[in-house]
């Protein structure tokens, strides 16, 4: 053991993590400029480049999935066919088209955007940096999982060009066993994406176990790592179930084996059990990493220690555990036994508790903090508000008697958009802004950032609050046309989606503009103290010029702001 490591161990023993106090070297090429050939990107083993490639892919898919959302919302502006007649002649073909649009929107957003968004794109970039490591534990596996994602995405592109998919993203049988659309390529695509997800999860688990720097014990890790770790465990344990389920469905479609289709002696409800055994944990695969981001955003931009560290850490772990025990609440009206519904309803409430704990701890972190209300922080605060609505409306769905009424209505649609998009994606965008200077070395326009965040926030609520109301009034989901009494709500919702889209396009515009003419980012523009803020922006190829010791990620007292450079510098600790 070398001397610095021994020192770090000693520091750990006294409960004080040693500070990395040497000035950060910003000389030498960054990971972006060290090599410039195409193959140096295509065959890179650098987690940062893989993260950036994931990010580009995920953002492109977000654009695609978002376009389908806008098509759906535009069509629903009126109960009459208004957009589909441009593409299809008969009323039947128009309804088919609408079904393809909402299916494509859902499948792309879930499998290609939200699930890989935070862990694979942002997580890949940030995780080794947070650990002070050179890379993830298995760089080749990491590149492999990226290419699996690409292949999975290509299957979806193929689906788009071969007649689309109309089963809904859930592939419910027996409809998916008989649908004439491109179900098989879509299943293969999701199957491959599953492996991408498993490999990423496995990689992160090993990285967090084996590559923490000297002095970083489990309870000194940044909370984002706790969240990614919990997520990785879920990915590794749950995704194989999805794989095998889709494989069975594939066999059913191709060979006519009766597993889920009652005409061949199968059971459609069995498919729902299998599907949600994965897809419920998947909901938390989509939301727990964003929660981790928000823990970082709120603490850093409040310049205050995160409140209730252990409670937040354990709530991530308990959400991961409970997430495996609540899948049945997607099936309250499917005809499964009364006893089972009661048990699932009870356990479902237990997921609400750790979520509530997190929200209150984030708010307590803001109390008496020094809040910088910049774009990332605004996204963080938006997250708390939207997640509160998403979580509270989840209570309605967990109460059996109420769920009987609101199941499969727009209430559910609004609820899961508040959780998946209003929380998951908003935190992703917040995290993107938070780490953008580190990734690109450029600062974006705070002015436009705040305006875009406001547009997204207002647009989002305008889109989905009317959906809660029309849902509880009895508007079923996945409807191409609807009763006239719901028209007003749908129109508000559609207008909201345009406002939100404007916000996202504005975001794309100023972020791209920052790449071209943004101010050069300092090492530590926000005043964070986790290890990624102790290296150059953008970091060099192997992240750190000197292997750093662990810092206390939530100790902001030794940081001094330099208004000239916009940098927070670490004061020397004697």
């Amino acid at each position, binding site marked *: 053991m070398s001397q610095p490591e021994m020192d770090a161990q000693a520091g750990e023993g006294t409960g004080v993590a040693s500070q990395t106090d040497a000035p950060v070297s910003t000389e030498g090429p960054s990971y972006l400029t060290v090599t410039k050939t195409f193959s140096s990107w295509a065959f890179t083993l650098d987690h940062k480049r893989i993260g950036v490639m994931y990010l580009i892919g995920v953002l492109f898919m977000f654009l695609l999935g978002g376009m389908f959302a806008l098509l759906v919302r535009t069509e629903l502006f009126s109960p009459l066919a208004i957009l589909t007649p441009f593409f299809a002649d008969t009323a039947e073909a128009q309804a088919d088209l609408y079904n393809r649009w909402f299916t494509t929107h859902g499948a792309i957003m879930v499998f290609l955007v939200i699930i890989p968004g935070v862990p694979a794109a942002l997580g890949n970039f940030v995780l080794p940096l947070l650990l002070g490591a050179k890379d993830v534990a298995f760089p080749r596996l990491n590149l492999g999982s990226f290419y699996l994602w690409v292949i999975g995405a290509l299957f979806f592109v193929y689906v788009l060009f071969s007649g689309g998919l109309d089963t809904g993203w859930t592939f419910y049988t027996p409809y998916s066993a008989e649908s004439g659309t491109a179900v098989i390529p879509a299943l293969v695509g999701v199957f491959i994406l599953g492996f991408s997800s498993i490999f990423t999860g496995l990689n992160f688990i090993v990285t967090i176990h084996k590559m923490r720097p000297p002095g970083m014990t489990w309870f000194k890790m940044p909370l984002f790592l706790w969240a990614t770790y919990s997520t990785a465990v879920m990915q590794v344990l749950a995704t194989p179930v999805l794989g095998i389920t889709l494989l069975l469905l594939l066999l059913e479609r191709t060979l006519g084996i009766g597993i889920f289709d009652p005409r061949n002696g199968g059971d459609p409800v069995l498919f729902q059990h299998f599907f949600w055994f994965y897809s419920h944990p998947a909901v938390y695969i989509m939301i727990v990493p964003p929660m981790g981001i928000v823990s970082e955003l709120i603490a850093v931009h409040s310049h205050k220690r995160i409140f209730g560290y252990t409670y937040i850490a354990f709530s991530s772990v308990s959400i991961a555990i409970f997430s495996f025990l609540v899948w049945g609440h997607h099936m309250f009206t499917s*005809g499964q036994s009364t006893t089972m519904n009661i048990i699932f309803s009870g356990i479902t409430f237990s997921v609400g508790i750790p979520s509530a704990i997190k929200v209150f701890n984030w*708010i307590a972190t803001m109390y008496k903090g020094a809040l910088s209300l910049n774009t990332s922080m605004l996204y963080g605060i938006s997250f708390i508000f939207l997640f509160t609505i998403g979580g509270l409306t989840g209570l309605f769905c967990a109460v059996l008697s109420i769920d009987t009424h609101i199941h499969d209505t727009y209430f559910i649609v609004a609820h899961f958009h508040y959780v998946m998009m209003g929380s998951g994606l908003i935190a992703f965008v917040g995290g993107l802004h938070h780490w953008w200077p580190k990734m690109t070395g450029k600062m974006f326009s705070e002015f436009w950032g705040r305006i875009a965040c406001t547009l997204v926030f207002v647009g989002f609520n305008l889109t989905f609050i009317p959906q809660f109301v029309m849902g509880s009034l009895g508007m079923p989901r996945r409807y191409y046309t609807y009763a006239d009494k719901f028209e007003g709500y749908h129109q508000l919702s559609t207008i909201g989606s345009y406002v939100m889209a404007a916000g996202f396009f504005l975001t794309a515009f100023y972020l791209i503009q920052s790449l071209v003419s943004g101010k050069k980012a300092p090492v530590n523009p926000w005043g964070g103290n986790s290890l990624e803020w102790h290296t150059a922006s953008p970091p060099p190829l192997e992240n750190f010029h000197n292997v750093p010791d662990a810092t206390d990620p939530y100790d902001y007292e030794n940081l001094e702001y330099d208004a000239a450079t916009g940098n927070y510098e670490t004061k020397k600790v004697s």
Partner: protein
Amino acid sequence: MNLLVTILAQTEPTYWLPEAVSNFAGPVDRDFYFVYWVSIFFLVLISALLVIFMWKFRTPPGAHAQSQRDHHLLLEITWTGIPIILSFMMFWYGYRGYVDMMTPPNDGISIVAEAQKWAWNFSYASNGATIPGMSEDLNLIRDQVRSGELSAEQAVAAEGKILEKAGLHVPMGIPINITLMAADVLHALYIPAFRVKKDCVPGRTGKIWFIADEPGIYDLYCAEYCGQGHSWMHSKVVVHETVEEYEKWLEVAGSYDESLPFEENGEIVWKRRGCISCHSVDGSEKVGPSWKGLFGSNRSFTATGTPGELVANEAYIEESIRFPMNKITEGYPPQMPVVKLTEKEILWVTEYIKSLGQNSGGAENPRKEN
């Protein structure tokens, strides 16, 4: 609490919930508003804290926090404990209401609701009559109102005319037991005003029950995605004021006017028994072959059933109705459910198909090349 219950147990629609007209509506709405007010309380609390903190603690870059306090045991216990207690209450209310929904009484009226792509059929145990949901006709009225062909009053009248022989009819004040079935894929029976919903699963039977509280006409939807016609698959529930009125209706609605010409009764069968959702009569493309010009045309069959060819005659039509999987016309999916028609209904339908133009053994079915 009693006052609150009285206020909430109203039949008029509120801003959040539709009219409440069954024995379950009151309890469900009470649970809904309990969770609603708890949620509003926490949403207001959290939003207020966020806004106050954003205002009060906002600082320019470089400022240091006033405090670095990072834990407070009592606070953690409070905000863990209160949600746990509230969760238990919510779970308990939901459980209580749900168990009632799942415990049908032994008496009452039994009706089978069978869903198929994309129609409802309601069979009444007392006289065996099957009454269709008539989604197509109800949709037509909706379209005509939108295009201005029908005024609102005319629409009500036209709808009333259709519902004389269509829809789910129940008497007020008596338990109604509905057995749910599906012929092809998943569907779900959803009556918002009654707060009842359950999936119709092929190969299984499901049950719901309710007591309707107010006479009137209420919406009935399919709530589980079932493909192309999902959003067209709605019908109406008609609540009669007395059992006598209901029984009188059932006797009339369940019968055909046998004095009508065969093909006219055939057209009624086509609409009433759901043939309309897959078979057009004007040659337009639907899930199944159009009936226009079908009689006497050459049919060729896929290997899914018995392969081969023949000219469509009476026997072929009867076989196709009774055993739809026996002969599958080339180019069409093997999806037709078994709809149990009576001898007379089959006769009338056959005559109706004949009346839609006959071929003298020449025409090919349009999708043969596919």
